[in-house]
C-alpha cells in the first residue's frame, strides 16, 4: 500500500475515519475550552485568555505565511489598524463590539490588500522587507491618528458590554475571545478544505503551475492578504477591549515577531500548529516567572524579562534548525506511531 502523507488541512473525503477522529478532537477541544475557567484559578484563566487570543492572531498569520507562503512582519500594524478603527467606530458612532469588529475587519482587508501588492513582484526576504516598511509606515500613521483623536495616552476602551450585557469579567472575556478564536479556526478550516485552499497551496508551491491550472495568482495572493489582515484587525479590536486600552507603544516590531515565533514553533501551515505555538509562546513568560519565584530570583532568574527574550531566541533557532515542522510535527508522528502500533 502506498502510504498517504497528505497534509491534514487538505481534507480527504475517502478517509471517513480521519473525519470522525477530527470531529472527535474538535468536540474534545471545545469541551476543554468551555470547562477550563470553571476549573482553574482566575490567574490561569487569564493565561488561557492570552493563549486563545494569541491563537486568534497567529492562525490568520499562519494562513498567510504557512499556507500561502507570504512572509509578513505586518501583524502588529494590522492589529493597530483594527484597534484604532474599532476605537474610532466605537467612540464616534457609539457602536457595539460586533459592528466595530466588522468595520475594523473591512479596514484590515483594505490595508492588507495594499500591503500585499508588493507580493505580486517580491518573494521571501524582499517581501519581508516590504512588510517591515509597511509596519513602520502604519504605526507612524497610527501615532498621528492617536494624537489627533485620542490624545497622547492612546484610546481607553470602556468595559465590554454587548446588547446591554456586561462582558468585562475575566470569565466572560475569556468566553468572548474563545468564541471569536473558534470562529477564526472554523473559517480557516473551511477555506483550506475548499478549492480556495488548494489554490492557496498551489500558489505557494509554484506560481507557474498554479497559473497553468487556471488560478489567478495575483487574485489569490491579494485575497489571502486581505482575508488574513481582516481577521487580524478584527482580533485587534478584541485585544484592545481586553487590555482596556490601545496605544502605539504596544504595537512594536517585537510584538509582530512574537506571532511569527508562534507559527514557526507551532508548525507552518497548520491550524493545530498555530494553537500549540500560541500556547507555547504564551507559557514561556509564565514559566520563567514561576521559576524566578520558586528559586528566589537569584542569578539569571533575577532578570526574567531578558531571560524570556533569550529563551524565545534559542527556541526559534532550535525549531528552525531541528524541527522545521514545529510542535505539530511531534503530535503528528506520535499519532502515526499510535495508529501503526495499535
Amino acid at each position, binding site marked *: 500500500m502506498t502510504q*498517504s*502523507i497528505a497534509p491534514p488541512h487538505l481534507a480527504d473525503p475517502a478517509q471517513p475515519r480521519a473525519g470522525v477522529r477530527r470531529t472527535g478532537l474538535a468536540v474534545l477541544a471545545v469541551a476543554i475550552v468551555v470547562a477550563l475557567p470553571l476549573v482553574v484559578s482566575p490567574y490561569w484563566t487569564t493565561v488561557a485568555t492570552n493563549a486563545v487570543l494569541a491563537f486568534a492572531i497567529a492562525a490568520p498569520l499562519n494562513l498567510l505565511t504557512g499556507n500561502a507562503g507570504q512572509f509578513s512582519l505586518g501583524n502588529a500594524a494590522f492589529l493597530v489598524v483594527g484597534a484604532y478603527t474599532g476605537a474610532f467606530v466605537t467612540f464616534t458612532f457609539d457602536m457595539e463590539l460586533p459592528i466595530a469588529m466588522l468595520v475594523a475587519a473591512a479596514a484590515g482587508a483594505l490595508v492588507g490588500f495594499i500591503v500585499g501588492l508588493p507580493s505580486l513582484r517580491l518573494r521571501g526576504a524582499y517581501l519581508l522587507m516590504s512588510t517591515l516598511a509597511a509596519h513602520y509606515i502604519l504605526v507612524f500613521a497610527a501615532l498621528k491618528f492617536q494624537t489627533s483623536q485620542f490624545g497622547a495616552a492612546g484610546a481607553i476602551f470602556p468595559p465590554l458590554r454587548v446588547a446591554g450585557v456586561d462582558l468585562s469579567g475575566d470569565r466572560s472575556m475569556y468566553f468572548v475571545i474563545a468564541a471569536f478564536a473558534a470562529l477564526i479556526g472554523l473559517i480557516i478550516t473551511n477555506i483550506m478544505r475548499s478549492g480556495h485552499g*488548494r489554490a492557496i*497551496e*498551489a500558489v505557494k508551491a509554484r506560481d*507557474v*503551475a498554479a*497559473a497553468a491550472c487556471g488560478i489567478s495568482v495575483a487574485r489569490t495572493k491579494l485575497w489571502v492578504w486581505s482575508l488574513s489582515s481582516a481577521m487580524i484587525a478584527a482580533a485587534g479590536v478584541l485585544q484592545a477591549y481586553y487590555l482596556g486600552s490601545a496605544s502605539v507603544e504596544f504595537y512594536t516590531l517585537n510584538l509582530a515577531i512574537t506571532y511569527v515565533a508562534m507559527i514557526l514553533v507551532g508548525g507552518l501551515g497548520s491550524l493545530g500548529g498555530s494553537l500549540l505555538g500560541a500556547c507555547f509562546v504564551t507559557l514561556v513568560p509564565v514559566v520563567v516567572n514561576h521559576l524566578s519565584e520558586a528559586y528566589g530570583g537569584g542569578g539569571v532568574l533575577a532578570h526574567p524579562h531578558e531571560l524570556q527574550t533569550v529563551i524565545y531566541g534559542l527556541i526559534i533557532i532550535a525549531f528552525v534548525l531541528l524541527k522545521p515542522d514545529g510542535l505539530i510535527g511531534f503530535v503528528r508522528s506520535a499519532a502515526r506511531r499510535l495508529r501503526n502500533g495499535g
Partner: protein
Amino acid sequence: MAGDVVEQQFLSVRDLDVAYASGAHALRGVSIEVGAGERVGIVGANGAGKTTVARAVTGLSAVFRATVRQGRISLAGKDTTRWPAWRVLAAGVVTIPEGRGVISNMTVEDNLRLVLAAIPRRRRPAVTEAYTMYPVLGERRRAMAGLLSGGEQQMLAVARALLVRPRLIVADELSLGLAPRIVTEILDGLAARAANEGTAVLLIEQAVVMSLRFVDRAYVLDQGTVVAQGTSDELRQAGDTTARYLGVADLSRAEELL
C-alpha cells in the same frame, strides 16, 4: 462539425514580437495558426523561442516577465493577446508547461482537483476520468505528486489538461527527460483523446523526429523567427538548410535511427 461552413483557424498568432524584462528579444514577427482539432508542432533548437511562443499563447508571459511588444494572438477570432492564464484557460486553451507543472507536495487527486475550480460547477467532470485514461494515476491517487516517476508526473499533467475538455492543448517539451517508450505511451493516450474530442494540440518539442511523427504539420523556429513550415512529410524531405536548423544532419535518415 458545426464550424465546417466558416473555415477559421482556432488559434491565430500574427507577427508576434516578445521580449523579456532581462532584455532578451525572444520572438520577432512569428505567425502561427492552429485549426480546430489540428495537431501542429513547433520544432527548433534550444533558445529558438519555442517556449516563449507557448507562454505567450497561454497567457503565461507575465509570470516570466515577458511582454508582447507587437502582434496579435487570437482565439476563435477573439483578441487574447494580453489575457492572463486563467482567462485563456476559460476560453479553452490549456497548457502543459515545461517541467510538467505538477505540484509536488500535493496529492495526485488534489492536483487534478486544482484545475476543476476553473470550470463552471455544472460542467465539471469527475476526477475519475483521469484514472480511466491512465490507471496508474488512480492507483497512486493519494500519493504526493512529487513521489511519482517522471513519466507518471507527465501523465498527471496530460490527464489534468484533458480534464478541462480544452479546445487546444499546448504541450511544452513533453518528452524532456523521459524514455522514448514512455513518451510514446503518453502521446498515444493524448492523441486518442484529442482525436475523440476534436481537441487541437500544439506540440512544442526539441525532439524533432518524435514530434514530426505525432503532428500533421509543423513550424521550424530559429532565433525567434519561423524559418520553415510544412507538413511532417514535407519537413522530413526538406533539404540541408532546414535540417541544420533542427540540429539533425538528414531528417529523412534520422527517422531510421529511432
